[in-house]
């Protein structure tokens, strides 16, 4: 997996229901995504290498980008989970300097407009009502594609040292496009 170009998007799915995890995994794999499914917000943060300690986060994130151990392109999470809700997880991701640019999608079995609005206002890209359908999963593509320019360029910088000079204008462009996205 040392290539600058990713052949598959990697989605991290978070749901405390085993059945729903199995379902979302199948939906995502059918759409050719690589999937990691975990059963709690805490496990999701653990997987990303995000701890409460800001120091650890910096250390972990540099390890992640060097080894490309954890490369997540999108997080899809259930809302109602014991302990950390999907909303709590969304907030933690968006507050993290290393992971705030990862698109987050929320799923819920309950159609509560105030809940939906709050999630979208606080940075969720989409809100899916359960049971999630293939037509919902097809809405993920544009959010995944948005991240590709800046991420690919970043990885080019890490991997192709010889071409660093050529790539620095790209790096600047990537920064600007990140700003635009945000």
């Amino acid at each position, binding site marked *: 997996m040392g290539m600058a170009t990713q052949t598959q998007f990697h989605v991290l799915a978070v749901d405390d*229901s*085993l*059945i729903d995890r199995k*379902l979302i995994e199948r*939906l995502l794999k059918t759409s050719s995504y690589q999937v990691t499914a975990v059963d709690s917000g805490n496990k999701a943060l653990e997987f990303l290498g995000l701890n409460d300690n800001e120091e650890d986060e910096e250390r972990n994130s540099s390890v992640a980008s060097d080894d490309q151990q954890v490369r997540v392109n999108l997080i899809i999470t259930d809302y109602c989970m014991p302990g950390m809700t999907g909303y709590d997880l969304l907030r933690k991701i968006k507050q993290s300097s290393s992971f705030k640019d990862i698109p987050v999608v929320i799923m819920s*079995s309950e159609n509560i407009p105030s809940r939906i609005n709050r999630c979208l206002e606080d940075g969720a890209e989409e809100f899916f009502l*359960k*049971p999630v359908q293939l037509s919902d999963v097809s809405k993920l593509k544009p959010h995944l594609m948005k991240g590709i320019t800046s991420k690919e360029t970043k990885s080019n910088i890490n991997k192709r040292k010889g071409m660093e000079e050529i790539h620095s204008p790209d790096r600047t462009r990537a920064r600007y496009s990140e700003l635009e996205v945000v």
Partner: protein
Amino acid sequence: MDLVQLQRQLVDYKTSLYNEGFLDEQFTQLQELQDENNPDFVVEVVSLFFEDSERLLNELTKALEQQSVDFKRVDAHVHQLKGSSSSIGAQRVQKVCIAFRNYCEEQNIEGCVKCLQQVRHEYSLVKTKLESMFQLQQQILSAGGSIPM
């Protein structure tokens, strides 16, 4: 019974399950997610549903037997059951769960007990029917046929 008759029987049986509200569109979605690479997907998910439901029904029974019923806890279990039944398309089970949650909110113990009985009943019906359907499918496959969708 020959293969064609078996296949016809399966189609009729499935149709009746939809007509009688045991299954809804979500079950069809599950079937569409099954393919040659994941030939047992539906059976696997439904088996998980059976296991999970039985656990939840036991928890619900225990919770409602308590001297002082913890309605939040009861509601949490029903919420899970509602979610999983919705995920596999077990419509009648899901519908009872909706009524059940309303009784939880009202802290109506009688209503909850009644709903528990109802949900047990609906669960047992859909379990029997799905098992019959899977058996029929297996018979067709063993006879060298394919499953009509």
